[in-house]
């Protein structure tokens, strides 16, 4: 491996990493919001909306992100909806992630025993108050490991952004290889930069999980 080449490529990879992170965290934030709203809808069994959420989940979990991005980026403009590549990345990641986040929040909500709800009701709390003060906080802390797994999964999925010409890590590596044929160096840096992005999340995740386990609510 050529050291000089490596060093000279680093700024390009750094920029790519920053772009990936920027789109990544916006998309993930978006997916959290979808996840919470979707899970609340299924939790309260809201008519019609519940069915829509179900269809949404199946649709986005059973099609590749690549296809979803193509749809948003190339098909929507045909019906007059124009969108930048970055916004497309955020939207695609958010929609895909939302489907997974709903499922994660939902299984957290379902794991809270029904008698906690009844205990809250017996104090005169309304359905909404019970959800907000009693069930959701417990469900979220139970869901943390699953949510972090989703975050890692979504950050990895960003690698398909290159197909809609976003200069993310994958795009940068492919581009450089195409131009200068320093394949080994480029791929080496690609792996390193993905690790730089994902290892901290994994480590923080493991720490939080351990703390949660020790501080567990269990009686």
């Amino acid at each position, binding site marked *: 491996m050529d050291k000089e080449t490596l060093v000279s490529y680093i700024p390009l990879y750094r920029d790519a990493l920053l772009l990936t992170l920027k789109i990544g965290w916006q998309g993930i934030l978006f997916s959290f919001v979808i996840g919470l709203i979707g899970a609340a809808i299924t939790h309260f069994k809201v008519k019609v909306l519940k069915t829509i959420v179900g269809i949404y989940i199946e649709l986005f979990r059973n099609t590749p992100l690549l296809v979803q991005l193509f749809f948003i980026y190339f098909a929507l403009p045909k019906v007059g909806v124009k969108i930048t590549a970055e916004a497309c990345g955020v939207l695609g990641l958010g929609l895909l992630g939302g489907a997974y986040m709903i499922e994660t929040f939902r299984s957290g909500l379902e794991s809270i025993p029904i008698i906690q709800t009844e205990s809250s*009701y017996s104090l005169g709390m309304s359905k909404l108050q019970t959800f907000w003060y009693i069930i959701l906080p*417990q469900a979220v802390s139970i869901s943390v490991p699953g949510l972090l797994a989703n975050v890692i999964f979504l950050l990895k999925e960003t690698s398909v952004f290159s197909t809609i010409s976003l200069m993310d890590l994958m795009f940068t590596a492919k581009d450089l290889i195409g131009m200068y044929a320093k394949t080994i160096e480029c791929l080496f840096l690609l792996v390193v930069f993905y690790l730089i992005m994902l290892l901290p999340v994994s480590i923080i995740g493991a720490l939080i999980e351990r703390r949660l386990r020790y501080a567990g609510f269990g009686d």
Partner: protein
Amino acid sequence: MSELLKVTHLHKEFGKNVVLKDINLTVKKGEVVVIIGPSGCGKSTFLRCLNGLEELQDGVITVDGLPVEANKREITKLRQKIGMVFQSYELFPHMSVLDNIILAPLKVQRRNKEEAVREATELLDKVGLLDKKDYFPRQLSGGQKQRVAIVRALLMHPDILLFDEVTAALDPEMVHEVLETMLALARSGSTMLIVTHEMAFAKAVADRIVFIDKGEIVEETTDVADFFKEPSTPRAKKFLSTFTYE
């Protein structure tokens, strides 16, 4: 004395399984009614009906003249009049003892925080748990958790308190502290409906005994001492005999 709780022709079934048949019961203000009966006879279901946690197939329940109906908007108002303590405590595990206690007074009754905290502190002190107010439920023993659950129900100032086998999950040495708390409440004039398997306690605390078997009230009497000496129905006799060892 005025009627606080009135149950007429209550009928409850789960699918084809009839759990409560034509239950009629009136509880007056300040009265302590103890419900006993074999496992599975419908005691818990009965209390859950009173609190609007179950839908009835027939019959009417009123508290203070107002009908208790599950899934109606008014039910949250009614539940404030009815305190309930569960066998498994059901404290909220993610909140401190104090927060558990003041949550509903603040959010439901919109009471002033300072005032709610002051009253919570007084009540915790009374049950000997003031030093635990910042603890989390998992840091408490079963008996302590149950006393917190009782204080939590009390802070809502309910008209009537329902207790469903609140000592059944406790180690024997902790049963006493919880029963003491309940006895003190009874003596202070609280209206209570208690389901229990602690016969000595039932005898001490009850103004009236209601014996339920297979979803029916089989025997009901205010002669509490006589009931435990010599119940008038064979079914009650048989049930009580399971508590003596000869």
